[in-house]
């Protein structure tokens, strides 16, 4: 594949591309879904193809083929160059891609047990056991979903700087959802584990326990009430702090949004954007995480990015284009969902660093408010400066004590205000559940994390 990659890049530049790159992938994967004690579908994915990108003058052309013959790759290169020239003919903004360092490496992500070497029967057995572990907890668990996913792929990244990288990427993921019913009330709980790595992850105690965790959450929520609406002091747990780091600030730090004029953080490097104790980091190099990668999908070595340090905005996440246009070194934040999508700027493992408060002390120090736990999802519009995220459960805090349990609270905030309202960070930092981040129709595996964090004046959406 490496030889094909180099010939294709040479063909693209020979046709007039000022810069060209490609991603060739050949991958396989498994997905097993068990519902209520029976397999719903056992799926195998066999996927291969190539996405070629060409740059001319200020515009990109991108072409995708599933056929990895040299003839087809040359045609894809021709199409990419033609697309770039068509786009460039009407491009009003002109720029160049700064010549970067040629990288040569073969990376094999750590994997003790290759998923492809584990029998499907064993994987099905694992998922069936997860499913059973939910049902067996309590008869009020009325429905269950257990899921297992794995991926093994070879990715070749090549570009006209001379970069040629081969990455052998493996990841596995397990997830459970449980529905509990009591009278007319139905509640759902969920939990997941996932990481770059092999099937060994599914043998760990944490993985075997995800069904129980999901079921216990669903049962807990049976006696919850709808969340109240209004402004509250909120203590976010590790999961929600991570989601806030990702949604409330991480996306606005993606330099493509800055160049699009679509981020409220444009022009604010060096400004105070958060309380003094806040440091926000995106780090693809966290070993054993779901968001791990060593080289990005443009062939740039990944690195730890400090986005906010002690409340001051320090930098953004970049790809080759944004770094060229903004005159700073690339920092390896370009990712593609697969060969069929062009690389765009993405987060990886995003977190807020821990503080000094003891978690219990932080709660005791809060006269009234809400403890917010677990994340369902979140989203942001950096151009409107607003974000929201939804929790699994919340607890009333009265005079420093936890009280009534609530469900489904949605928290909203303003990017430039929320981190200025932080009034306490606990010393219990941890990275949390694996997840997928969506952007421009592409999905990327990510992990978020942080400590318990107290924020004043959060708008909580509820039904009462």
């Amino acid at each position: 594949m490496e030889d094909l990659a180099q010939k294709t890049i040479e063909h693209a530049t020979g046709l007039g591309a000022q810069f060209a790159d490609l991603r060739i992938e050949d991958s396989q994967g498994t997905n097993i879904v068990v519902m209520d004690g029976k397999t719903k579908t056992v799926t195998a994915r066999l996927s291969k193809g190539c996405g070629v990108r060409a740059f001319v003058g200020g515009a990109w052309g991108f072409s995708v083929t599933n056929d990895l013959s040299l003839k087809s790759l040359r045609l894809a290169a021709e199409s990419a160059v033609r697309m770039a020239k068509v786009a460039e003919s009407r491009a009003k903004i002109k720029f160049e891609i700064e010549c970067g360092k040629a990288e040569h490496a073969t990376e094999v992500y750590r994997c003790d047990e290759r998923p492809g070497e584990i029998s499907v029967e064993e994987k099905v057995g694992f998922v069936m056991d997860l499913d059973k572990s939910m049902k067996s907890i309590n008869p009020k668990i009325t429905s269950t979903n257990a899921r297992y996913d794995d991926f093994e792929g070879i990715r070749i990244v090549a570009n006209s700087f001379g970069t040629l990288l081969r990455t052998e990427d493996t990841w596995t993921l397990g997830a459970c959802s449980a529905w509990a019913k009591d009278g007319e009330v139905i509640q759902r709980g969920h939990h997941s584990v996932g990481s770059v790595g092999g099937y060994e992850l599914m043998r760990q105690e944490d993985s075997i326990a995800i069904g129980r965790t999901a079921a216990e959450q669903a049962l807990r929520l049976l006696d919850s009430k709808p969340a109240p609406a209004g402004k509250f002091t909120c203590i976010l747990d590790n999961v929600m702090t991570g989601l806030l780091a990702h949604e409330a600030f991480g996306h606005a730090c993606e330099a493509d949004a800055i160049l699009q004029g679509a981020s409220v953080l444009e022009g604010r490097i060096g400004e105070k954007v958060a309380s003094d104790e806040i440091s926000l980091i995106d780090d693809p190099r966290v070993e054993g995480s779901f968001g791990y990668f060593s080289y990005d999908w443009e062939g740039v070595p990944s690195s730890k990015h400090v986005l906010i340090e002690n409340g001051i905005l320090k930098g953004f996440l970049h790809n080759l284009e944004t770094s060229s246009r903004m005159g700073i070194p690339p920092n390896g934040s370009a990712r593609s969902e697969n060969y069929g999508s062009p690389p765009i700027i993405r987060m990886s493992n995003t977190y807020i660093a821990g503080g000094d408060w003891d978690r219990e002390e932080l709660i005791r120090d809060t006269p009234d408010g809400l403890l917010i736990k677990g994340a369902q999802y979140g989203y942001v519009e950096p151009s409107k400066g607003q974000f929201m995220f939804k929790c699994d459960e919340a607890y009333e805090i009265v005079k420093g004590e936890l009280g009534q349990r609530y469900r489904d609270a949605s928290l909203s905030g303003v990017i430039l205000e929320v981190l200025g309202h932080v009034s306490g960070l606990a010393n219990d930092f941890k990275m949390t559940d694996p997840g997928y981040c969506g952007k421009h129709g592409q999905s990327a595996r990510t992990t978020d994390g942080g400590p318990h964090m107290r924020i004043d004046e959060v708008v909580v959406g509820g039904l009462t």
Partner: protein
Amino acid sequence: MTLAYLSEETVKAVMRLGADECDVIVAQTNSISVEIERGSVKQASSSIDPGVGIRAISGGSSGFAFCTDHEPASIKKTAELAVSLAKSGTADTDFRGLPHPSKPKTISGLFDPKVADMTPDAGVEMISRVADVTGDDKRITSVMAGLGMSVCRVSLANSHGLVAEQELSSFDVFAEAVAHSNSTMFSGFDGSSSRRLDLSQLDSAGLSAREHAINGLRQTKIETGDYAIVVDPLAAGMILADAIGGGTNAEAVQRKRSYLTGKMGQMIGSESITIVDDPLLQWAVGSTSFDGEGTAARPTTLVDSGRLSSYLYDSYTAGKDSVESTGNSSRGGAVWSYRHPPSISTSNLVVKNGSSSMDEMIKESDGGVYLRVTFDHPNLATGEFSGLMMESYVIEDGALGPSIRQSTVGIGLIELLSRIDMIGRESKDYFGVRTPAFRISNARVAGSA
């Protein structure tokens, strides 16, 4: 080799490998897209995506595998995998069989040859026009826009002798404008999806994005309280796609995961609300002549004058409830994918128009809120919705006032449907839902004032 021949031959091969039943989708999708960033053409893309998806059934257990080409060696390996995976699953006596051949309706408006004939150059010209319209105001500081055109040929065959073919096209456009005034920033967006090349959508998407970006610059905060809410088709489409599309999914109902479980025949909304799943609409992006298992497509009334009247079924869930499939097994929306096993989904969800004009709804809602954009999903287990009002406006003096900063809305879905007391007379399509605006008499809003 035609796609139909390939699908039929693959079915025979899968059955020879020992499957009890199977279906095979053979598809090829060709796409072109063009993007504008900060008013400048930024990227043009093309893709060719052929592939084969095979679902094999053994003892009621389903195995699915796909490959990303039409090569005999890949298909053979995929077929072997699908059969082997089916055999590794658990037996399922609820599976009553894949559909038998039926005659799909011949419907117009699935394929527009003009979409197939589009060139990247024409796409660049069109999206440049969208950008010009969107940015035509000095307060607009950035414009993003995109255009996507796809043509999908698909053949579906199964082991009962069913063979169905269709050609689908899709044309999508979106525009987003960012406006600045002093230190205030706001963005507006709009877009449309259709199976035909609808040039009128280019200007209307751009105009709407520009107007909303500018309208949002004037901002206010509101206090937490109960408000009448006029829901724009954009927000209505987002909420109803889940609330009705997800809530009536027979799989969720049978497994008691939906708030609509056990409510068949009961009133779940006001008498003015009728909602139909209609796959036969001309040029709508969810339209199809047969579903993802080959069942002939047909309209299904889900909510009839406020009463829950049907769930959405595929062959598996229909067999379990001993009813006919409603033809809602999906292989994707506008273009079909061979990469996923079929699953239950709406085609086009249609909310029946009412008689109110937008002016009337707004005038009747003085002191209330106009909700244009939310991207939140309801909790289908509890039947509760709580979400950010990403773009919303106060209603004052019979007109839309300033946009509301940082507020959320919360309401139970049955309360939401039951409190609809005015329905607009003009529909728009968003998120696969064709709906007019409607008014909810009362919902809880959390504000930041």
